[in-house]
């Protein structure tokens, strides 16, 4: 199968788009597509045309209900990152001010799985956020940045949006960011002048809810506009951005690059 030339692989693109190639050829094409943007574009065109050949039929009644029912499965239990407040370990009062003593007490209280409604809400937030993080992060990378910018711009223009300005806590420099959270809990973080990080580093966004610090998402090494999600029932009191290893961390020990509290 290594006898295929690039030209021959290109000739397969139409058949490949229609799932009409042999398995070994499929593999060849897929390998070629990885580093050939031109062929990826051609394939996308073929797929669009093919999609138009598909003749619709009304989907059977009850099918959506069955699909919806199978979505109801609860989130995977307890990858619970009610993040231990470590963000402000350097003592930055603007973010969180929690002694180690207090955080231990709080951790054990949480472990009791929560008599307090507020705590329960926070746990829910934590679970949801952590569960969503990876896929939102992956997705953010895929979405054309213009699309995100439009959505963020619309959110900024909405008077119901809660906006928080983040600044450099050292008071030096002119780094700034804006977090905009719409009433449905969709948040946008605009970071126009964060310096790019090396590939193996990332910025990470944290939300401050009461005296807890919760990861809201890994922003990548060169974020400009990022999307995140908070439970609209829970007010986020403030935000912080830290620099972390690529992939992010469950709780941070690093000094925040940016912080801001809701005014």
């Amino acid at each position: 199968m290594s006898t295929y030339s690039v030209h021959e692989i290109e000739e397969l693109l139409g058949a490949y788009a229609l799932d009409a190639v042999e398995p070994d050829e499929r593999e060849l094409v897929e390998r070629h597509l990885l580093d050939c943007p031109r062929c990826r574009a051609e394939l996308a065109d073929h797929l669009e045309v093919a999609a138009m050949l598909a003749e619709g039929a009304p989907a059977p009644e009850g099918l959506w209900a069955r699909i919806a029912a199978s979505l109801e499965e609860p989130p995977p239990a307890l990858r619970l990152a009610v993040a231990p407040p470590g963000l402000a370990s350097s003592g930055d009062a603007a973010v969180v001010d929690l002694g180690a003593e207090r955080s231990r007490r709080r951790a054990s209280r949480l472990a009791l799985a929560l008599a307090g409604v507020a705590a329960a809400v926070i746990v829910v937030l934590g679970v949801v956020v952590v569960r969503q993080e990876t896929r939102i992060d992956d997705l953010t990378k895929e979405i054309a940045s213009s699309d995100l910018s439009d959505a963020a711009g619309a959110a900024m223009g909405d008077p119901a949006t809660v906006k928080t300005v983040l600044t450099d806590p050292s008071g030096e420099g002119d780094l700034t960011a804006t977090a905009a959270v719409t009433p449905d809990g969709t948040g946008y973080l605009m970071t126009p002048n964060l310096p790019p990080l090396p590939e193996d580093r990332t910025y990470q966004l944290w939300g401050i809810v009461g005296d807890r610090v919760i990861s809201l998402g890994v922003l990548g090494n060169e974020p400009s506009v990022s999307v995140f999600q908070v439970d609209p029932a829970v007010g986020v009191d403030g935000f912080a951005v830290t620099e972390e290893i690529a992939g992010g961390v469950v709780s941070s020990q690093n000094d925040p690059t940016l912080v801001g509290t809701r005014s």
Partner: protein
Amino acid sequence: MSPDALHDASDATLVIAISRYEQRALAEAYRRHAGAVYGLARRLLGDPALAEEIVQEVFLRLWNTPEKFDPERGSLRSYLLAQCHGRSVDLLRAETARRQREERDAQRTAEAGYDVEHEVLDLTVAERVRGAMERLHANERRAIELAYLGGHTYREVAVILGEPEGTVKSRIRAGLKKMRVDLVEAGVGGAR
């Protein structure tokens, strides 16, 4: 996201909402595309129950791994239909399905004239697509139909049409390219 916003949402926005586990966003994707997915699966498999399973699988996959959809590589519709086609063809090519398929082909011949409804696709679009199809050389058209709607590999198509494999392969590609040009000129499918 409000119902109205969902209704007007772009594919990309819809999929962001799905990634946040917004069931309504998946419902909107289903409303827009389930008919096409179902129609294609049923056409390929000839079995409504199997086709339903495919639809279910395709939308569950979108729910579970929305990040696999890359809006820069094409529309959500073509993504979902490609998933549907791939899965249906896998099933078709499974050994156990072969015999049923032969029986079904016989039955289809017997029922020739049966026409699939165009519920989802805009009728003008359907018209233009059909027009573009008709402007292809008969052999290009046959090759594309046998591959896409019949689920045959290009090698099988070559046998069916009694033509060299290389010719069939080139015809499929050339035919798709021609249709693309034709449809873009007609103002269909240009936006991506």
